[in-house]
C-alpha cells in the first residue's frame, strides 16, 4: 500500500534559519515524489517534484530510496515561506497519476 508520512504537524523557525520538512514514504514500486504548498487563502499548488530535479523558491528535495525519504530543504527561511506543505507520492508505472498525500506540515517563519 502507498503511504506518506509527515511526522511534524508544525515547524516553527526564525527568518534566515535553515528549514527541513520531513517526508517518509512506503511504496513497493518505483515512486515519484512531489511537494505541494498551500499559502494562506490560496489554492493548493505544486512546489516541486523529484522527476524535474529543480529548485523552486530556494527549496530543494532529494529522493533517498534507501531511507525512503524525500525531505524538503531550504538554507535560509523567509517569512513568505510560511504555509502548509504537503508531500505526495505517485507510482511511476501505474496508469493514471493518482496522488497519495501526507497529512501536511505547517511551516511558520518568525521574524
Amino acid at each position, binding site marked *: 500500500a502507498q503511504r*506518506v508520512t509527515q511526522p511534524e504537524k508544525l515547524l516553527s523557525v526564525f527568518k534566515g534559519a535553515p528549514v527541513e520538512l520531513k517526508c517518509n514514504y512506503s511504496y513497493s514500486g518505483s515512486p515519484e515524489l512531489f511537494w505541494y504548498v498551500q499559502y494562506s487563502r490560496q*489554492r493548493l*499548488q505544486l512546489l516541486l517534484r523529484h522527476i524535474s530535479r529543480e529548485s523552486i523558491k530556494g527549496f530543494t528535495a532529494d529522493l533517498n530510496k534507501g531511507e525512503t525519504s524525500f525531505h524538503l530543504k531550504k538554507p535560509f527561511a523567509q517569512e513568505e515561506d510560511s504555509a502548509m506543505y*504537503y508531500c505526495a507520492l505517485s507510482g511511476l508505472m501505474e496508469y493514471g*497519476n493518482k496522488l497519495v*498525500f501526507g*497529512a*501536511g506540515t505547517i511551516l511558520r517563519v518568525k521574524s
Partner: protein
Amino acid sequence: EAGVAQSPRYKIIEKRQSVAFWCNPISGHATLYWYQQILGQGPKLLIQFQNNGVVDDSQLPKDRFSAERLKGVDSTLKIQPAKLEDSAVYLCASSPTSGVRYEQYFGPGTRLTVT
C-alpha cells in the same frame, strides 16, 4: 489561463440531506480528479476521470457518493444521503492528461459542513 473553478465555495447541510458540487476544469484538460480533505489530513483521491471515463474510483463510497463528467468537461460530485463524517473540503483538480509528468492544478475547494 483561467484556473479550475468550483461551486459552491461553502455548503452547510443537515445529515441525511443531499448535496452536489460542480467543477469546471482548465480548458483542454482531459483528466479530472475529485479529492476529499478532512480537517487535519491530506487530500484523498475519490475519483479520477480521463475524458468522460472513470480511471479510478476505488476510494469512492459508492453507496452514497456519485460523480459524473458528461461530455468530458464539467463534472459534478453528489452525496446522498450525507453523514456527519462527510464534513470536509472537496477539491477538484485537472491535468492535461494522465501521467506523473503532468502537473495537477487544483481548484479553490468546496467546504462542506454536515450538522
